[in-house]
């Protein structure tokens, strides 16, 4: 992963500006798709911030996302808090949670981290349900706001833009350089004096913060929040597939993966709902066997070949 260029940043800015017009050109179904695209773009890009350079596969997205949604639901429903204060709180909780997980697992090899994040969303869901049933009384949580889909879309667009900008800054900083060395060879990184655990924990914390923010922003869309719904483990796999399908080498890779995957998924899910889970399986196998560097890698490979001719 090379440092991102200024040219890339300008392109990204143009893209964000163009994307901002989407709600004015579409409504109903296509606006809904737009919200999904933005949500997953933000999640997959923040996943890429951490997993791209380090090659650690995080399946914690659903956990952070769920924490964000649940904090907003609980705060607005049980304590009459405002949406914005709960949004801020969920970012803090997401970050603290990620930092704790990072401190426990990121000092060790990547396998432990994957295993730990694999069941994390499910475990937090069990804990939250238990707390809700035994101490809070099992009430539903309502999130009632004035926001329309277009508002959510713009908020998610801003979030995705911030994630990208942060990634751009990091990739040009000392921290980004350190992460690239860690991804290349962790032993080398340690020997040249990089505090590898700390670098990984910092990056993972940003993933947690953004995951929770996205979950919090999406909460008003559901209006009724239930742990089973916000902690859906499938979301983590979606994020991984989209990010890797796009390509893990570039910060803008996820965008390329999110749109085709979402369109295919929606089509299969509405036509063959029982077979939709197979799409996830096939997507993983396609990534491993045919697109190990994603669409972006394939495009760059073709471009290099064209240039060589």
């Amino acid at each position, binding site marked *: 992963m090379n440092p991102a260029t200024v040219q890339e940043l300008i392109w990204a800015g143009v893209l964000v500006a163009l994307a901002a017009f989407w709600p004015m050109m579409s409504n109903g179904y296509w606006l809904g798709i737009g919200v999904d695209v933005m949500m997953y773009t933000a999640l997959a890009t923040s996943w890429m911030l951490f997993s791209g350079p380090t090659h650690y596969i995080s399946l914690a997205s659903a956990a952070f996302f769920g924490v964000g949604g649940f904090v907003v639901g609980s705060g607005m429903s049980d304590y009459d808090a405002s949406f914005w204060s709960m949004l801020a709180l969920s970012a803090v909780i997401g970050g603290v949670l990620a930092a704790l997980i990072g401190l426990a697992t990121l000092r060790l090899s990547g396998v432990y981290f994957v295993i730990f994040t694999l069941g994390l969303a499910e*475990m937090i869901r069990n804990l939250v349900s238990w707390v809700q049933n035994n101490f809070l009384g099992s009430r539903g949580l309502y999130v009632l706001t004035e926001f329309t889909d277009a508002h959510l879309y713009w908020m998610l667009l801003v979030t995705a833009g911030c994630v990208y900008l942060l990634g751009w800054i990091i990739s040009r900083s000392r921290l980004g350089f350190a992460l690239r060395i860690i991804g290349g060879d962790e032993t080398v990184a340690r020997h040249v004096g990089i505090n590898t655990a700390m670098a990984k924990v910092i990056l993972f914390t940003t993933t947690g913060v953004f995951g929770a923010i996205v979950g919090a922003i999406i909460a008003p869309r559901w209006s009724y929040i239930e742990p089973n719904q916000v902690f859906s483990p499938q979301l983590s796999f979606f994020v991984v597939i989209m990010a890797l399908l796009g390509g893990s080498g570039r910060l803008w890779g996820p965008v390329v993966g999110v749109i085709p995957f979402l369109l295919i998924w929606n089509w299969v899910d509405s036509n063959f709902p029982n077979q939709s889970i197979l799409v996830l399986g096939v997507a*993983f196998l396609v990534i491993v066997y045919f697109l190990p560097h994603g669409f972006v890698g394939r495009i760059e490979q073709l471009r290099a070949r064209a240039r060589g001719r």
Partner: protein
Amino acid sequence: MLDILVSGLLLSGTYALVAMGLNLQYGVARIMNLANGEVLVLGALAAFWLYTTAQISPILTVILVIPVAFIGNWLIYRFLLTPLVRRSKSQGALEVDSILATFGMSFIFIGIMVSIEGGFFFYKYLSEPISILGSTTSLNRLVAFLLAVLIAAALYIWLHYSRPGVAVRAVSVSTEASGLVGINVPRVSALTFALGGTITAVGGALISTFITLDASIGVVFTLKALIIVIMGGVGEIRGAIVAAIILGLVETGVATLVDPGLTLAAAYFIFVIILLFRPQGLFGRRAV
């Protein structure tokens, strides 16, 4: 209290068996198989399906499952995982690839199982109550435990006192060195992977006699098996047994004393403690 001890111990028998299967796959074949739980559920589905459609006893199914699971897992290793082993430059790259590939397989297994049976795999087999040491439990738990112990003991003896068993253990210590002393590493890895998958499927068939499963529950068992393997130390059979007993007891304890919905949280709690204080496992050697 005695109830917790008895049912926790009975549960840990099958856990230990399943963890041994995963241990073989990860410790010897070097494949982090996250479709392990789905293979277990496939075994359970076979037991459920044969019992409800043809009244075939789950114990007979265990015997039927062995060749099918062995060949199936061998084919998976030979045709899907060998290319990954060949192209990987390092253990880390292989781990990432095998994790993603086995995720893919796990979802495909789930898809297939959902199309066979979308609901719970519920059936009654040997569910008469029996009394052990004054604590009441059901006969199927005891039978599953005894069979699991029998299979695990056979495996242990085979690994320690037979020639192929020694080869398997040699590969688990070092693939390079065992290649140098004339062991056909790819062949041993493939057979060990197949053996591990078989043991997992058998464990699934046994578990299905006393726990009601469904097509999407596999990941929970994958996690439990992984936690047991890590707690015991990768490649350590004795460690896996001790770890399985600890997990079985803690889970049963939490389920009876606090809430049955918190068993996964209990498993995580153990996991965190192991990661913080003894990441190489109870019986593992510290990595150099």
